[in-house]
C-alpha cells in the first residue's frame, strides 16, 4: 500500500513556532555573544571571542559560577537524598502515606514569587520563626537578617529552593521503586539479609536509572534557577547570592551589555547541554529498563 506521508502537515505549524521561539533565537544568541551590542543601538560590531575572554577573567563570573557549584552540591545533598529517603519510607504501606506525600508535593505547585513570600515568614528578622526559635533557645546573638546578610543569603535561598525541589525527587524515586523487582527482595529476605543490606545491595542498584534522572534534573534545575534569587535578593547583598542567571540578567538588562550577557548565557547553555547529553544517553540508551 503506497501512501503519501502526511507527517509534514502535522509538523509544519508546531515546528514553525518552535523555530521562531527556540531555535532561531538560540542561534542568534550565540551570534550576539560575539558582538558588542548594547541592547539599544541599531548597529553593533563583531568582536570575535572578546566577550568570552572577559567571561573567563571576570571575577563576578567566577563568583557566580562558584555559587552555582555550591547550589548544585547542596541540591545533590539535601533534596535528592531526602527525596530518596522519603520515597523509601512512603513506598511501604505506612498509614496515611497519601496524606504525607501530598504535604511533600505541595511546595511544587507554588510559584517562586509565592515561595519567596512564604519563606519570608521564616527569615524575617524580627517576626520570622527562625529567629524566634533561636531566641527561644536562648541565643539571641545568633539572630540574623537571613536574606540581607551576605554570609547567609545564599544558603537561605538554597534552603527554600530545596524545600520545593524535594517533592520532584521523591516522585521520581517512587516511580523507580515501583519498578524494583520484589522477587529479588523477597529472596534476600528469605536468605536472612538485613534491611540495610537489602536496601544498599538490592534496591539501590536497581534505582540507578532513577538516580541518573534525578541527578540530571537536579543539576539542570540548579543551573537554571533564577526566579527565587531575583525575587528574594536580586543576587545581593554585595553579589553574595549572585548566580549565572542573575549575572546574565544584570549585565543584559541593567548594564545594557547584551553582547556580554549573551556570552554568559551561552556558557550556561553549554553547561546544561553537557548534563542533558548524559541524561538522554541514559534515558534513551537502554529503554529496556523502563
Amino acid at each position: 500500500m503506497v501512501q503519501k506521508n502526511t507527517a509534514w502537515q502535522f509538523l509544519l505549524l508546531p515546528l514553525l513556532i518552535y523555530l521562531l521561539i527556540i531555535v532561531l533565537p538560540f542561534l542568534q544568541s550565540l551570534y550576539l555573544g560575539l558582538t558588542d551590542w548594547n541592547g539599544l543601538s541599531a548597529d553593533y560590531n563583531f568582536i570575535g571571542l572578546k566577550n568570552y575572554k572577559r567571561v573567563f577573567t571576570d571575577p563576578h563570573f567566577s563568583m557566580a559560577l562558584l555559587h552555582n557549584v555550591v547550589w548544585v552540591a547542596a541540591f545533590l545533598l539535601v533534596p535528592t537524598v531526602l527525596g530518596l529517603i522519603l520515597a523509601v519510607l512512603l513506598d511501604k504501606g505506612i498509614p496515611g502515606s497519601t496524606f504525607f506525600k501530598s504535604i511533600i508535593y505541595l511546595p511544587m505547585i507554588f510559584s517562586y514569587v509565592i515561595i519567596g513570600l512564604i519563606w519570608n515568614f521564616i527569615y524575617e528578622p524580627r517576626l520570622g520563626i527562625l529567629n524566634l526559635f533561636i531566641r527561644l533557645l536562648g541565643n539571641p546573638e545568633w539572630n540574623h537578617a537571613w536574606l540581607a546578610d551576605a554570609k547567609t543569603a545564599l544558603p537561605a535561598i538554597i534552603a527554600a529552593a530545596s524545600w520545593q525541589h524535594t517533592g520532584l525527587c521523591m516522585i521520581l524515586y517512587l516511580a523507580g521503586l515501583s519498578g524494583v523487582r520484589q522477587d529479588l527482595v523477597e529472596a534476600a529476605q528469605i536468605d536472612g539479609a538485613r534491611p540495610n543490606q537489602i536496601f544498599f545491595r538490592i534496591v539501590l542498584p536497581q534505582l540507578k536509572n532513577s538516580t541518573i534522572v534525578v541527578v540530571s534534573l537536579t543539576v539542570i534545575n540548579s543551573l537554571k534557577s533564577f526566579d527565587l534569587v531575583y525575587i528574594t535578593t536580586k543576587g545581593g547583598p554585595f553579589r553574595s547570592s549572585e548566580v549565572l542567571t542573575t549575572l546574565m540578567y544584570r549585565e543584559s538588562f541593567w548594564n545594557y551589555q547584551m553582547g556580554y550577557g549573551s556570552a554568559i548565557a551561552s556558557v550556561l547553555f553549554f553547561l546544561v547541554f553537557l548534563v542533558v547529553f548524559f541524561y538522554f544517553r541514559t534515558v534513551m540508551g537502554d529503554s529496556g529498563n523502563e
Partner: protein
Amino acid sequence: MSKLRKNLSLALIVVICILFFIPIYGAFTTAFRPNTEIIRNGFWAFPAPPVLDNFITVWQGGKIQMFLVNTVVVTVSATIISIFLGSLTGYAFGKIGFRGDKWLYILVVAGMFFPPQIVLIPLFKLFNSLNLLDTLISLILVHVGFGLPICTLMMTNFFRDIPASLRQSAMLDGCHDWQILFRIMFPLARPSLTALVILQFTWIWNDFLWPLILVKSEYRMTIQMGILQLRGQYGLAWGNQAAGALMATLPTLLLFIFMQKHFIHGLSMGAVKE
C-alpha cells in the same frame, strides 16, 4: 524489631512533614489575621479567630482582578495551544513516522531542558521589532514555544502505545490522518491530555521570568509580577501580602487538591519515560 522499625519510620515522616508544612502554615494563617494583631503577637502566635479583612483590602485595591484576568488569558490560551500543537507533533512522531524522525524528535524534546536565559535577549529583540513587547500575545507565544517539548514528549509516548492496527483499519474505512486524530485518537488520549493540562497550567500560571522581560505596563502584568508589586505596596502589611499570595495560588492549589494523581503521573511520565 520490625514493629519498632515501622514506628521509627512513621515518626521520622511525621517530623519531616511538620517541618515541611511550617512555612505554609505561617503564610496561610497570617492571611486570616488582622495586621494589628500580627504586629502585636507575631506570625506564629496562637491563631486568633480568622477574619477576611486582608482579602477584602486586597480585592478592593482593585488591581488583583486585572492581574488575574491577564494571567487567565495567557495561561488558558497557551495551555490549549501548546497541547494542541504537541498532539500534532506527537501524532506525526508517534503514529505516522518518517525518515529521520528520531533526530527531529530529540531536537524538539531536548527543549524541555533548555535554559530560557539563552533566548531572553533575542526574544526581547524579536518582540520589540514586531511591536509585541508589553502584550499578552508575546507571553502566549513564548509559553507555546517552551511548552511544545513536554507536550510533544507526552503525546508521542501516548501515540506510540496505541496499536498501529487502529490507524490502519480507520484508513481502510476511508479516514485520513486528521480525521483519525480528531475522531479516534483525542477521545482515547484523555488521561495524557488531563496530565498535560495540569502541568502546563501550573507552570504557565506560575511563570515570572517572561512577564519580567516582556511586560512593562501594570495593566498587562500577570499575577506573579502583580504579587511582587503588591508586596512592595503593602510593605509591612503582612496579612495583606499573605492574602494576595493565597488568592494568586488558589487556582493551582485547587487543581492540585482535586487532580493530584494526574499531576504526579504527568511529572513522573514526563521525566522518566523516553
